[in-house]
Structure formats: structure tokens, C-alpha cells
């Protein structure tokens, strides 16, 4: 994709990664992704972030299209050091020989640890620092733990643009650059998936920093994340900020997710019976086999659910590895305000539901009694599962009011 002038003399010069499916090695990006970065033509020509290293050719080409083949870049602004954004930094420093590289205090440490550089012209810009590019100024806002210690936002009052790096991002490869050019519902889905799998544990920071953007008195007319579509116009900027405040609040919906693995289909049958009990009480249910669903897809559903039911048979006095994997992944993302319960079958010893219940309870979930079945469920034990579903539904209703 060619550079796009998003405001006068401000260019999107990113790369669209149509084939990316494995995002950072742990999450899925079913629709690809983009690495957005920006070039500002002012007295001081400024590059904001870079792209993933495999797109170094694209980046150089885009810069040349805007500035000509003898491009000179004075300033680099590095909002975050993760390789999908800073991947080309070392090559870009060598090629363009910037006068200054601006980054956050933690960014400087991360930059050193990533690139082991010597003699780079790095200047640390804590919150409140502003620099002049000529006609424009850039203001820097530290955003520690949104989602790394080095994360930083950059604001340009003259352009009314907030460059937000990973905040407000979505994994979606498109030929369009702006949110108002695509269908809103899939955009919202991509945003929620991204939030659930990447930003969720830092919800307290989102609440403190992004929900208070209005209080900072920033006049924002464009929000430019480093992945996916950009937001232009006050209405869309407010829309995306409001969405993030909603995600950060983690208010549960009338929805339950049952994830499970099964050996001989007993736990699977139990999951179906629990789901029927929930659905009969009007709760929206997702039954997610971990053989059929990747952990990040499960997490995208868990994020706004009121209840999470984990299912596994007992296997060698423990639980099946896919379930263990899911629980570890979910724990790291620290979901809040959930009801938890467990189901599982067993052959001789039956530790499964205790292990599952402990894992969910340790995440702070309000627990409903589990159901455990020896070998194969009967009509009676299926009925117990159905009743468990109804009990969970009652707890959901009490919770969401």
C-alpha cells in the first residue's frame, strides 16, 4: 500500500501484513494486521515508530515516495520497543542518521536492551516534555504498562492527532486506512479481540490514562494506533475512547463461556447439558472445545462474559493439557468480575474439578459448585449438569442485575 496523507504533511507510511495469522506467537490474528507508522514533514522531518523488520523494504519505499530517494529524517519518535513497531529501528538509524531519537524513560532502557547500541542520539522525554518540529510541537505522555513499561503516547496539538501505539489497535489487514471506511461491527470485533488478548490485564491503566484523556484537555481530532484502522473526527475519536472505557470496566454481559477438552465425550456431553440449563434461563452461551478453538479465540469470548465454566476429565490425577494451557493463558490476562464453575468426568480418581475450581477461584471468580461424573453421564447426572447451568444463570442474573 502507498503512503496516505492523513493530514496536511502527515503521512501514514505503514505496512499491511495480509498473511499474518500468528500474532506475537501466542494470539491469533485471523484477518492479518497492519504496522502503522507515520512521517511528519515539517522543518524537522519526523518519523513516528517503524514497522516489523520484514517490511524494511516497504518502509524505505514509503519514505522515498514521500521525501524522495535522498530522504533525510531529523527526528525519530519511538513510542514502544516491541519488534513489530521498533523492528526496523537499527536499520533506520543507520540509513537515515537521525539527529535525535525520542523515547520514554523506560523506552531508553528497553532500547538499550533490544539493540545494544552505542552512540545513538537518544533523548528521554518524560510526560510533559514537548519538542518543536517547526510549525508543530509534539507532546509526550508516558503510558507505562499500556501494555509494556516503555509504552508512550505522542500528541500533536497543531494536527490534533494522538499517536497511541498499541492502545486502540486492531488486527485487521485492510486497504482502507480509516475506521469510517469499513463496517463498524467487524471493526468492533477486532478491537475487542485485541483488547481481550493484549490489553486486558492493564485495564486499571486504561481507566486511569485513556478514560481521563478528556480531563487532560487534549483537543483530539484523530487517533492513530499502530495496528489496524485510524480514527478521524471527534465523533469516532470519542467512540473509540468510550469503547476502551467500557472494556476496561469489565462489566459482565448476560453471557457464559464453557471451555473444555474431552477424551471419550463424557465431559463434552456434560458441557452440552450445562449450556442447556443456562440457555433455558435466557443466558447466551458459547460451548468451546479447546480442540476446535484456539485459546485466544476463547479469551475473546470470555472477556465480556459473566460466567466461565471449565471442563476437563481427570487425566493421570490432573487435567488435560489444553485445559491447563487455557487456564494459564487466562490467568495472565487477569479477567475480573466473573462467576466460575467446573465440570469433569473421571475413571478412578477424580481430581479434575478440584483443580479447575481452584484455578478459577484463584483468579478471583465467585464459584458455583462443580459437577463430577464417573465414566459416562446418566440421565440423572446430565440433569445435575442442567441444574448447575440454571444455578449459574441465577448467579449471573444476580450479578448483572
Amino acid at each position: 500500500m502507498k503512503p496516505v496523507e492523513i493530514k496536511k504533511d502527515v503521512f501514514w507510511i505503514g505496512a499491511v501484513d495480509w498473511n499474518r495469522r500468528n500474532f506475537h506467537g501466542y494470539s491469533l490474528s485471523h484477518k492479518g494486521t497492519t504496522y502503522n507508522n507515520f512521517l511528519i514533514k515539517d522543518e524537522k522531518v519526523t518519523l513516528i515508530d517503524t514497522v516489523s523488520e520484514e517490511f524494511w523494504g516497504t518502509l524505505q519505499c514509503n519514505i522515498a515516495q514521500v521525501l524522495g530517494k535522498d530522504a533525510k529524517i531529523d527526528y525519530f519518535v519511538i513510542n514502544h520497543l516491541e519488534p513489530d513497531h521498533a523492528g526496523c529501528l537499527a536499520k533506520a538509524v543507520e540509513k537515515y542518521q537521525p539527529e535525535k531519537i525520542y523515547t520514554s524513560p523506560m523506552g531508553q532502557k528497553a532500547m538499550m536492551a533490544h539493540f545494544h547500541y552505542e552512540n545513538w542520539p537518544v533523548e528521554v522525554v518524560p510526560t510533559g516534555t514537548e519538542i518543536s518540529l517547526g510549525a508543530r510541537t509534539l507532546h509526550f505522555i508516558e503510558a507505562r504498562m499500556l501494555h509494556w513499561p516503555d509504552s508512550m503516547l505522542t500528541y500533536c496539538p497543531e494536527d490534533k492527532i494522538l499517536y497511541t501505539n498499541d492502545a486502540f489497535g486492531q488486527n485487521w489487514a485492510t486497504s482502507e486506512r480509516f475506521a469510517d471506511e469499513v463496517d463498524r461491527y467487524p471493526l468492533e470485533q477486532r478491537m475487542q479481540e485485541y483488547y481481550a488478548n493484549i490489553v486486558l490485564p492493564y485495564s486499571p491503566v486504561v481507566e486511569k490514562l485513556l478514560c481521563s484523556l478528556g480531563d487532560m484537555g487534549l483537543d483530539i481530532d484523530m487517533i492513530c494506533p499502530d495496528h489496524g484502522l485510524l480514527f478521524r473526527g471527534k465523533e469516532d475519536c470519542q467512540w473509540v475512547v468510550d469503547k476502551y472505557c467500557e472494556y476496561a470496566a469489565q462489566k459482565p454481559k448476560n453471557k457464559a463461556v464453557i471451555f473444555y477438552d474431552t477424551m471419550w465425550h463424557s465431559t463434552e456431553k456434560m458441557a452440552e447439558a450445562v449450556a442447556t440449563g443456562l440457555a433455558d434461563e435466557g443466558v447466551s452461551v458459547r460451548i468451546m472445545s479447546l480442540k476446535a478453538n484456539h485459546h485466544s479465540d476463547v479469551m475473546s469470548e470470555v472477556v465480556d462474559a459473566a460466567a466461565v465454566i471449565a471442563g476437563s476429565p481427570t487425566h493421570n490425577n490432573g487435567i488435560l493439557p489444553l485445559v491447563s494451557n487455557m487456564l494459564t493463558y487466562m490467568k495472565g490476562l487477569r479477567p475480573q468480575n466473573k462467576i466460575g464453575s467446573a465440570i469433569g468426568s473421571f475413571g478412578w480418581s477424580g481430581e479434575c474439578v478440584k483443580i479447575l475450581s481452584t484455578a478459577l477461584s484463584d483468579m478471583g471468580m465467585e464459584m458455583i459448585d462443580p459437577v463430577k461424573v464417573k465414566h459416562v453421564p446418566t440421565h440423572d447426572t446430565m440433569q445435575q449438569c442442567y441444574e448447575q447451568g440454571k444455578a449459574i444463570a441465577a448467579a449471573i442474573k444476580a450479578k448483572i442485575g
Partner: protein
Amino acid sequence: MQKYVCDICGYVYDPEVGDPDNDIAPGTSFDDLPDDWTCPICGADKDSFSPEA
């Protein structure tokens, strides 16, 4: 009482406030926090904290 700052993310543990989200009552000094207590923002352990200047 002495406040402690997380070297990783900058969160400040204020003993007067405690850490209500993790059942740490107001008035709990940093030294009295359980050994397995972690930073509520970034998850770093107690060793990652320094006294606030």
C-alpha cells in the same frame, strides 16, 4: 509510613491505602505485605519495589 514505588511500572504502594483489590487492609506497611504479594499493575514481585524518595 514509607511508600514504595514499583521500579517496573511506577505504581506506588501507599500503606495508608493498602491494596484493597488484593485484600490488603489500609495501614499495612510494605514490610508486612505477604511475600507473594505482587504489583497490582504490572505483576512484579516485592523485590522490584524501592522506597519512594
